């Protein structure tokens, strides 16, 4: 594999660093395992059988490629640039999360691990992990913040139906970061037989890299589909960001196309002026958490502060290290959308296109709404519609003051 000079697609370096970000900030107990994982991932990358099995499962189990869809009525409603969606909400289990889980469980099996753990926020990654564990017959423990267990009951029940044990985590604010702490505690005590399927492009190297690689199927497909349909590349890519795996999946294959602009959309919660948001890049600063150096929500002493978002999947005080690097280099632009803007985007998509989106990509819809209006009709915006909203209808009903 030759690496192109001056490419944005060469990261991370040999130590797992994306510029000053990333790395392997883990306890010594985990370090040998993290090094093992890297070796095994390199071997898998060089093994055509691994790729063949991954591709086969994505095609015949997940249902890829996902469609590329021109949102005609939304485009008309906004009165500006064309809006296109990469329909990853149509994947098996309803989000992009499954792409990564397929890749990681194949790695786990290669490594001879017999037990799977994962953390989950909204429950989409938990459901995707429980799904692949059922598919491959491996026991599965999902750590989920008790707050999220309460607000994502449908996904909790899905995980249980799939045979997973769901462990509510009550420490801290009982949301995604606390679930990740508990996942790391389980892993450190069970390193001999346990594989930790991390749900986003974060954590110690090589997780940010391998999660990105597994999710890059989104951008590779989208690039081919867009060229086949329109004969050109999109002008703008837009995706929501919690940890950032769906955005990297879309962006990464386009990073060396200089004319393609990219916009990552974080969750601004109640607004960036207070502390009730989850926008690590636009409202945070660099630090070390959960195995990597990246942008974090933290106080002046380095204590981690609690994120807030209406979307449980974006409610995390950190972000994948590659996004931190892409921000610093200026290759990707980052913005944010509030809870209210996301709810408006959610409803707009429901009514103009007959698609009920998850609250996570509803943040991206909010950004697309603003962007499309500023651009001429010949411009193409491609947004990753990374999850469907069945899981969120109760949250949305409550936010809109509707009793179901």
């Amino acid at each position, binding site marked *: 594999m030759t690496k192109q000079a001056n490419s944005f697609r060469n990261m991370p370096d040999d130590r797992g660093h994306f510029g000053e970000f990333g*790395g392997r*900030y883990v306890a010594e107990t985990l*370090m040998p395992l993290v090094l093992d994982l890297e070796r095994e991932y390199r071997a898998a990358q060089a093994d055509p059988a691994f790729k063949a099995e991954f591709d086969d499962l994505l095609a015949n189990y997940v249902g890829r490629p996902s469609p590329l869809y021109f949102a005609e009525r939304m485009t008309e409603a906004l009165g500006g640039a064309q809006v296109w969606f990469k329909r990853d909400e149509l994947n098996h289990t309803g989000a992009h999360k499954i792409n990564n889980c397929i890749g990681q469980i194949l790695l786990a099996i290669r490594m001879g691990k017999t037990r799977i753990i994962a953390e989950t926020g909204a429950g989409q990654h938990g459901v995707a992990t429980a799904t692949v564990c059922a598919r491959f017959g491996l026991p599965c423990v999902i750590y989920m913040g008790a707050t999220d267990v309460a607000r994502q009951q449908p996904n909790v029940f899905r995980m249980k139906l799939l045979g997973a044990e769901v462990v509510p985590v009550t420490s801290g604010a009982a949301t995604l970061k606390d679930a990740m702490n508990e996942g*790391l505690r389980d892993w450190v*005590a069970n*390193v001999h037989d346990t594989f930790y399927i991390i749900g986003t492009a974060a954590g110690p190297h090589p997780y940010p890299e391998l999660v990105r690689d597994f999710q890059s199927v989104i951008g590779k497909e989208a690039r081919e589909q867009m060229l086949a349909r329109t004969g050109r590349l999109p002008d703008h890519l837009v995706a929501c960001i919690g940890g950032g795996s769906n955005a990297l999946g879309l962006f990464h294959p386009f990073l060396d196309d200089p004319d393609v602009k990219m916009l990552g959309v974080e969750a601004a919660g109640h607004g960036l002026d207070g502390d009730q948001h989850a926008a690590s890049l636009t409202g945070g600063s660099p630090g070390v958490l959960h195995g990597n150096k990246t942008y974090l929500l933290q106080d002046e002493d380095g204590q981690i502060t609690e994120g807030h978002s209406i979307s449980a999947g974006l409610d995390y005080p950190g972000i994948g290290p590659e996004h931190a690097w892409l921000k610093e280099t200026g290759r990707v632009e980052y913005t944010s959308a509030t809870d209210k803007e996301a709810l408006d985007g959610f409803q707009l998509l429901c009514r103009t296109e007959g698609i009920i989106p998850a609250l996570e990509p509803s943040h991206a819809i909010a950004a697309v709404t603003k962007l499309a209006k500023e651009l001429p009709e010949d411009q193409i915006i491609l947004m990753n519609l990374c999850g469907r909203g069945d899981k969120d209808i109760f949250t949305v009903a409550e936010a809109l003051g509707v009793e179901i």
Partner: protein
Amino acid sequence: MTRLSNAFTSPALVCFVTAGDGDTAANLDALVAGGADVIELGMPFTDPMADGPAIQKANLRSLAKGTTTADIFAIAAAFRDRHPDVPLVLMGYANPMVRRGPDWFADSCEAAGVDGVICVDIPPEEDDALGPQLRAKGIAPIRLATPTTDAARLPKVLEGSGGFVYYVSVAGITGLQQAATASIEDAVAKLKAATDLPIAVGFGVRTPEQAEAIAKVADGVVVGSAFIDLVEEHGENAPAALQELTAALANAVHNARKADA
């Protein structure tokens, strides 16, 4: 000889409490009065990934009271004034340590009379993040070795480390189970063959009996969660109970090899 190396000339008792949990100055004095040879002061963090329930709760109690990094260095500096000869080590997680930059942290340690730093989540691969700055100030970066640290990796762990080697006797989190004595003996022998640094063993050590068994084979015994439990139970009145437990542990550790003689 440094304060730390002096402490390990015979089997040493290393006692851990969390800064800002209870009356920390009084707690530290009680540990010294009970016979602690090295003090390990925990820096509270919101996300203590390697800690079990006891120390997690201690972290949160301390932070809920508003403990700041400045408070922790004030506690350390005051301890140094009261106890000029007792080694003091800070233990914690990377983010609070590097928040204002590694130079700031190393300078603050030096000013407060801190002898060493144990950072749970800076492995040797990320030594650049804090190690060079600590060494430049003569502060020992104390590394952890674990049951998963194999012979091939051990030299990397030892390179650039100082003070003592903290052997984590179980793959797991603090305060829960304890390893079998035979496996500890074997691990310590391997470590001693690879380094001249003293070897202290911790994780899951709670009773004088356990401490005595470890002190027969290792240079030091680390006890943490058992003290934290007493602080949780007795709050501001913990010093008497801490001193009593420390005395029993110190007696066991200091006489472990004499019992065989």
